[in-house]
Every structure is written in C-alpha cells, then in structure tokens.
C-alpha cells in the first residue's frame, strides 16, 4: 500500500505491506535507527516518537495508519547541531546509561511537558509509566525532566 508520511520535516512516499508497523517503517524503510524496539507487548516505550505532535508508541501503530501524518523521531530533535533542551537536560543530569531506552524516554518526556509544562516529581513519574529503563533506576531521568521543565 502507498503511504505518504512526513518524517522530521521531509515527506516520504513509500509502498509498504499492510502489516508493517510504524517503527519498522521508520527503521527499515526510512533508515532512521534511533527509534528502538524493546518489547513485543507495547510495554517498554523504547519506540516512542511523535506523530502529529503527540508522543506515541510506534510499535502500536501500522505504517498505513500514519499515512498523511507528520512524524518526529529522535533524529529530528536537534536543530543546527544543537540538541533539544530535553536532550541537554538528560546529558546534564546523567539521565541515561546504556542509552537504549533514551530516545523513547526523551520523546515521551517532551510529550509529557507539552501536556503539563510544570509537573511535580510525582506527575513525572506517573507520566513516564509507559517507558521502562533498566539502567538508571529512573532517578536521574526524573531529575532531567524536572530540570528541562524548570528551564522553560
């Protein structure tokens, strides 16, 4: 099936199988491998990206469902070689170790602040419920998100 999806500001026309997941489309068809896959039960959030401005788990969406949509992946955040403030906050607060959960975590965190620009620690923890990290114990991830919020 033909789809037209705008990825990080660039429109792509492709022919995909109906069962292709958005995450596989992004990784394999578009060739952007920053978005990761960590599970097969839509539990981990490693695949989180933005579709039409909203954070979504791209393993729960078919590529055909994204037809006509605008998608932002982790690769699309930095502008002119300068990282997005959320990326900087993660770096400054040691919000990542192995970095595998990180692209999804950063995309989810940006989505969280879009909805609630000044969250409490509790709200950050609840808001990131769908994103698992095995390395950091979340302590510094929460700190990163709060830092990004207060820098706004």
């Amino acid at each position, binding site marked *: 099936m033909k789809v037209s999806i705008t990825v990080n500001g660039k429109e792509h026309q492709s022919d995909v199988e109906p069962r292709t997941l958005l995450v596989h489309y992004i990784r394999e068809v578009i060739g952007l491998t920053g978005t*990761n896959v960590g599970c*097969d039960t839509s539990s981990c959030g490693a695949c989180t990206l933005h579709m039409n401005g909203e954070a979504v788990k791209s393993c729960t969406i078919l590529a055909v469902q994204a037809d006509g949509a605008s998608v932002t992946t982790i690769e699309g955040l930095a502008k002119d070689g300068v990282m997005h403030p959320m990326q900087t906050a993660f770096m400054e607060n*040691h919000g*990542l170790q*192995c970095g595998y959960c990180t692209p999804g975590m950063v995309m989810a965190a940006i989505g969280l602040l879009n909805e609630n620009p000044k969250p409490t620690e509790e709200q950050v923890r609840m808001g*990131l419920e769908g994103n*698992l990290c*095995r390395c950091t114990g979340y302590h510094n991830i929460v700190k990163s998100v709060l830092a990004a919020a207060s820098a706004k």
Partner: protein
Amino acid sequence: MTITEDKSTKIIGTRLLRREDPPLLTGEAKFTNDLNIPGALHLSVLRSPFAHAKIKSIDVSAALKIAGVVAVYTGKDLQSAWAAPMPCAWPVTTDMKNPPHFPLASDKVNYVGDGVAAVLATNETASRDALDAIDVQYEPLKAVVDLEDALSDKNIIHKDLGTNKSYTWPLLVEETPGCVEEAFKKSKYKVKERYVQQRLIPMAMEPRAIAAVPQPFGGDITLYSSTQIPHILKVMSALTLGIPEQQVRVVAPSVGGGFGSKLDVYAEELLCMALARKHNTPVRWVEERTENTQATIQGRGQIQHVELAADENGKITAVRVRIIGDMGAYLQLVTPGVPILGAFLYAGVYDIPKAYDFSCTSVFTNLTPTDAYRGAGRPEATYAIEMAIEALAREMKIDSFELRKRNYIKKEQFPYTAFSGLTYDSGDHLLAAEKAAKMTDLAGVRAQQKKQNVPGATRLLGVGMSSYFEMCGLAPSRVLASLNYSAGGWEAATVRVLPTNKVQVITGTSPHGQGHETSWAMIASEKLGVAPEDVDVLHSDTAISALGLDTYGSRSLPVGGVAIALACDKVIEKAKLIAAHQLECAAEDLQFVGGTFSVKGSPDRALPLAAIAFGAFTAHNLPEGCEPNLEAQVSYDPPNFSWPFGTHMCVVEVDTETGAVKILKYIAVDDCGNQINPLIVEGQVHGGVVQGIAQALFEEAVYDEDGNLKSSNLSEYLVPAASDLPSITTGHTVTPSPTNQLGVKGIGEAGTIGAAPTVITAIIDALSGLGVTTMAMPASPQTVWKTIQEATRGGKK
C-alpha cells in the same frame, strides 16, 4: 608516580558530563540491530514449547517452500559444524557434571526455549513465518521444575549423568576440627532460616542482536554482537567452531545494557557464525522480547539454609550454610560459579571466628539456564546473612542495628584477614552505617513508628537496613585458579600519545552503559596533564583492543582503570628519559606536573609532553636505545579483590488491608574508595538499588509445574516503572583501597547487593507487631497480604 596534586589539572573526582551521551541522545549511536549489512540473511530459531521432551521427528519441507526461505537446519544437520560443545568456563569441582550442550538440540529438548531448528531467509518476516511451518513431533517427558524435586533424582534430566546433581562445593573452615558443630551446641543463641532466591530475568532493554559477516576470501569472520565480552567471545567461539582464533574478530557496537545477561557465549552467536561461513554471506539475528525471557540466561534461583550461632552478647560464633543452586537445563559460561562467588560472603561484614561451614549443591532443572545476573552470588549471600542477623536480633530481643554494631569488623582491623583467608582491603562499616542512620533520621522514624503503629492501624511504618561487602574487581588470577576458573582476571590497557599530543587509550573493558569512555579519559587526562577531550578511548573491537577480559563483576575500574593509570605511568617514564636527554639533565632531577617536565628547582628548564610526543614521533633526537613513539601497554593482574561496602536503609509504609508496600525513603551510603566521577558512581548506585528493589517487590520468573514460563514478556514480568519507585538518596564515605594507586573499588553491583534485604527487613519491621517474621520475595501485595493473614491467624490460635 602518583597522581599530580596540581589543582588546575584535578579531573579525577569531578562530575564531568559523559561523552557517550550525545550520540545516544540523538539516535546516532549504532546498536547491533541498527547496523546496515547489505545482503544479510536473517536467522530465526524454532524453540521448544516443551520443558522436557524427546524429539521424534522434524519435517521442514513446508518451511522450505516459503518465499524467501533459503535453508532450514536441525540440530542433527549441524552436528559437524561444532568442534566442541558450548563452553562452560568454570568447572568448579573436578567431578562437576556438565552435559554436552549444542546450539541446537538433537534428540531431546530440556527447557522451553531450547533451540530445535534454524531458518535462514532473505528477510526477517519470512524467517519468522517459516518457524510456524516446521513440523516437530515431540514425546513429552516429566519436567523437573522444583529444586528439591531435582535433588531427589526421581526424574533424571540428563540420563547419561545418572543424576541431576551437577556438583557439591564445600568450604569448611574450622579453627579446630568440629568447632562449628560445637559452637552450635554450646552457644546461647541459634537461628535457623530458609530463604528462597527467586529466579530473575535480567531484561536488559536491548534484546540480544547478532550479525556475523564473513570475508569472501580467506575465511576471516567478524562477529557483531550485543555482548559484554567481545574478547572472551572471540576465544570461545574460535574454539567451539574450530576456527583459528586470528581469523575471528568480535565487535560489540553500542550495547543496551547487560547486567550479566550478555556475559555469555550464546547458541545464536555460534549459529550465525557457522551459517555465515557455510553460506558465505552475512547472517543476522535479533531477539524478540518473549524469546529473550526464555533464550537468554536468567539469574538467582537458590534455596538457602542459613544457621547462625551467637554467644550471650550476640557475637557470632559460627555460620553454617547449605545451598541448592538452580543451574537450569545446561551449564552456560559461568553458571556453576555463581553460587561460589557468594560462598565467602555468608559472614557478611562481621568479624567471625574460623567456624564456617558452607556447602552448595547445584542441580539441573528443565528451565532456562541460569548464569551471572548483577551481583552474581553476592546479593544472595548478603540477603541471607542480613536476614539471619535480623532473625538473631529477634531471638535475642535486641535491636538489629545494635547487634550489627557488636559484630561489625572494626575499622582498625583492616586490612582484615577473614576466616576464609581472603584479605578485606579497607573499610569502616560503622561510619557508613551511622551516616545512613543519620540520613534516614532513624531516631525520628522510630518515634513516628511508635505513634503510627498502634493496634488497629492499617498503615504501618517500618525501617529496614543492610550492611554489605561486595567482593568485586574480578579478580586476582591466582585466586581464580584456586576456584578452578578457566581464565585469569587481569586487564589490559594501551596508552598512546600521538604526535599532536592527543592521546589514545585502548582498553580491554567493554562498556555497555557504565561510561568508561568518560572515566578512562579522566584518568589519562589527569595522569598525563592533557585535557580530557584530547583523550580518545577505544574499546569493544578485538581488532583494535586485542587483549582484554571485558566488563562484569564490578571489575572495570579497579582492574581496567588501574591498568590505564599504570600504562600512563609507563608513558611518563619513557617521556621522562626523552625529556632528560633533551634538557641535558638526569631523569631523577625532573618532575612531571600538569603535563610538563621541569628540572626541580629551575622551572624554566622545562619541556611539555607535547614537545616530547612530537620528538618521539620524529625520532630525530632520542636517547641512545630509545624506541620512537610514545606508547605503553600494560596487563595488570590485581593483587586482591576490591571490597566496596556500605549500609542501606529504607522506610516503608505497608497497607495491611491491601498488602501494598510503599517505599517512603531509600538511603544508600556506599563506599567505593576514591571516586573517579561521582556523577557516574551515583548513577550506578541508583540503577543497582532499583534492581534490588525489583527483586524484593516486583520480579519473578514464574514457572508452572510443567516448566512453562508464565511471565514471558514485559507485560507479565514486572520490571518496575518510574511510577513504582521512590527517588534514592545517595551518600558515601571514602575509604580508599590500599591495593591500587587510584585507591578505587568497584561500584556496579553494590546497589543491587544492598537493596533487596533492606526492603524486605523494612517490611518485616513494619509488620513485626502482627507477628510477621518472614517475607518471601517478591513481596507483592498478595504475598504481603497472605503473610499478614497467616501471622495473625497463627497469633489467634
């Protein structure tokens, strides 16, 4: 040469931000499955749905008809591909039983997930679809799932072995023969406890991924793998496949966490290599999460019987431990050694006489093989001794912290020769514990507890603690030899000053989240007086870092980091000779501060390292016999383990009506000696603590009686999320290790070791008024609620 004290070059101990982060944060970093490998065939592995069954027949004909499928192999088809069975590097006893284990099973499957057939296809979808088309006829056999059942030998898994027992490993240390038994007879207080260490799934967020790329001519092969151990994997895969070692190159690209689960030589790595060579084309494989829970090793899995004897003052007089270890269906790389790594730690941080009787019997079960998981043997041991101390305190009706104080090894006793003969390098347990108590506001919490835990209250407050020692920094090679480990414990480092005074550090450690690039650059930067950004750290590719023993067992800094410092010393030594030659003075008259050699007493007679590096490169004016270039290599074998320690405390509130446990406060005071980068140290503690909390409250690989995994994906296996956890307050004390020049100890496993007993003792403390004295892990709401019911019913009887 010691670290320069020049404040302007003080890098070690600063919170330098990680250089690893930008590529990981922007999606630029490449994990194995991100690599673009044109023409690669995809491997999929058909796995047994039975825990124990005979393979009657396998029909692959329908699978071969699927478009895109290139080949299908059964275990029998590949028998000739293996020069040796899959490796177990730790035959802990000379009579240890080790069943032959091949990448695919041939006649019989021994756990759910055991590989039965391998499909190669031009794309991943076809290779997975083909799995459903393979027809395997099984004859199911009775599965052995329970450890005590395994021990009974009622059903024997590996018939040729004649038993399910793999080995019994005893450690009996007695001042005089029979003194343990005597202590148990004579001592005023005795406790006898049984604990179960549930099986855990390591669950690194990146599932394993592999790509084997053969060279078209000559037979060389490159293996890309999401592994912690490229160096060990190179040797082991060469031996298993019968390939000359120099033809194998192993690369670990970005690796998304390991925690021990990638410290192994896996069937899929060997299959990819064998089939890539057979087809002379790249072969790749990526694990699905549900596959990961079954085909990647699991951790823990022990039943512990622990006894303590103590005199009238509570001084421990003897320790007796009996363990049953769950090996799973086969022995993986270090499976049998895991309980042995804990064998020396059942006396914890306490000063005990030579009256220690430990024995571990390990058995096979029809479950996924176990192996090292963060802490490997040491969290189990710490849990047991810390829980037993609590039981002893209950028995004596005294405060458990007071009991610990009576038994702690004292600061002035270090270096302390333990009952086992091992030397504990340095420590101050009381200091760490008192600091933790202060940070917890222990007195305040106790007062609050008195107010809150009144009869009829349904939200009960509890405080828990544990003091731990982590035997880490694996390891002095000679000690490993005495434990029958098949390799050494050294680490290699090369430091090279390039002509432009930029530095390359090549390490044999293989980071996967620990920030070695940053920390190793900091060490070299401070030693050589160059900016950290001028130091490049190369690792995880055996073509670049030829020698190394990789990353596990909190070894990277105390072994690998120290190796770098030593290599820097060698570079400085050589540079000094060149400087002396060029400054026309004696080498002894030179000092090296902040990257410059100068003649002591006449600071303007000086040469910066930059000039010497360039001079070593041009080689125009070198002292007689001095080789060009500024480079040194070191293989460092540590003289001792490193012994980080600490005390953790936590405050919980237990809802007696629902069984829910809420951690209100978690305090971790850890002492890992000098810290290279406190930011990274804290991160290691946070992550470690949460893995310990996860064992205490959430996680368990649950099997049914037929050996089916009931928690086989991330919606059933409860890896905690941010919303399940508190923030963690870290504190530290600094007791440098005297055994290495950096004064460092490891920190990777400490949090995990301290956390589980801290949480469980807190829950028991909260419920002690209800008569609760035990708590199984994970202490889920159901388990807590049931335990309360049992205790209160028992109380009413």
